[in-house]
């Protein structure tokens, strides 16, 4: 019996690989089926959300605990949360506000990709949520939709800094809503709940809010930081920064 199975699956895998390679190289331009799929999935999910409204998450509740802890820390420093946002993030808002484009999310892939509706932008455009937290960047522009590499995608590497703009190190995404920053120098002054921003490299420009320090591990080489991402990946609307 197993010989028959081997023959059949060998044939099927040859057919499959031939189709796969053909569609990669020849049929790659046509993405009509993919946009139908995205719209179909969105309609079905919206339908289920209407039938079971308890599935809709309260976006603000995600931030409640974080804000509470932050306010406690900030009270010691005689600063308020609004001041920090105004001082550090207001400049970014002013700089990019005229270039913002809002797009609707079509699908959230569990692997870490987000598919949105089409917008006339370039590849590599930065994507943020409504609270100006960094979501990721546009990796592929198709005829009818955009594919975004989010910070939930594993193994992305980019530089991160603290609120004062001091380089912390290279952050690496680990696919579960957290980042790892290995080899942070021991003389760097960083505490739990401190904000972490992008430092600027060829992957992300500087000054975008990534998350806050969740845990600090002491290692032989200094510190290892675990950073919790603050972006709301469940948001239905995202913003693109057109250069």
């Amino acid at each position, binding site marked *: *019996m*197993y010989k*028959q*199975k*081997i023959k*059949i*699956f*060998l044939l*099927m*895998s040859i*057919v*499959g*690989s*031939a*189709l*796969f390679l*053909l*569609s*990669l190289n020849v*049929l*790659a331009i046509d993405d009509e*089926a*993919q946009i139908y*799929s*995205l719209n179909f*999935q969105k309609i*079905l*999910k919206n339908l*289920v959300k209407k039938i079971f409204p308890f599935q809709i998450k309260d976006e603000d509740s995600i931030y409640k605990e974080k804000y509470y802890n932050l306010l406690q820390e900030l009270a010691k420093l005689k600063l308020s949360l609004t001041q920090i946002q105004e001082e550090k993030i207001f400049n970014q808002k002013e700089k990019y506000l005229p270039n913002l484009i809002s797009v609707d999310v079509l*699908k959230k*892939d*569990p*692997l*870490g990709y987000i*598919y949105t509706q089409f917008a006339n932008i370039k590849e590599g455009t930065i994507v943020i949520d409504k609270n100006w937290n960094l979501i990721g960047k546009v990796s592929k522009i198709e005829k009818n939709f955009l594919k975004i590499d989010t910070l939930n*995608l*594993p*193994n992305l590497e980019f530089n991160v800094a603290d609120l004062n703009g001091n380089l912390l190190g290279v952050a690496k995404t*680990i*696919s*579960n809503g957290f980042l790892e920053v290995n080899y942070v120098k021991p003389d760097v002054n960083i505490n739990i709940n401190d904000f972490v921003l992008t430092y600027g490299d060829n992957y992300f420009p500087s000054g975008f809010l990534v998350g806050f320090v969740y845990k600090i591990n002491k290692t032989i080489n200094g510190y290892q930081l675990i950073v919790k991402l603050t972006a709301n990946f469940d948001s239905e609307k995202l913003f693109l920064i057109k250069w």
Partner: protein
Amino acid sequence: MVIQILFLSLLQIFFPQIFFLSAVLLFYYFKNKIKELIFYLLIFSFFLDFLFLKPFGFFLFIFSLSFLIISFLEKFLEYNFFYQKLIYILIFNFIFLSLFFYLSFNLNKNFFFLIFWFYLLINVFFQILFFFLNIYILNTR
């Protein structure tokens, strides 16, 4: 069985982490029903390509390659008992998910991230549940 597969296809949209159809295909594989296996493999691999926005033939290729590798295992190991099926399920899922992740991320280096083990765990768990239901409750050994 058709209603069951339609139901699983609908579930696939809402739970993309679990490959419901691989459980159905394994079910036919263990029952040695090759015609049904090929029929569902062809139909639903293209359905999964459509759903996961993959190039045409992606799932056909990785499903048939995974089945090809476990077919070689039949020379050494039977699958009459549940624990033997479990070995097949584990090997199949490991090969299938490795191919899926490797080709999805286009990475040359390590792709066994936390998310890979999460996928493996929930897929194996679902398939064990599926076979338990089929063999011991519906008695379709």
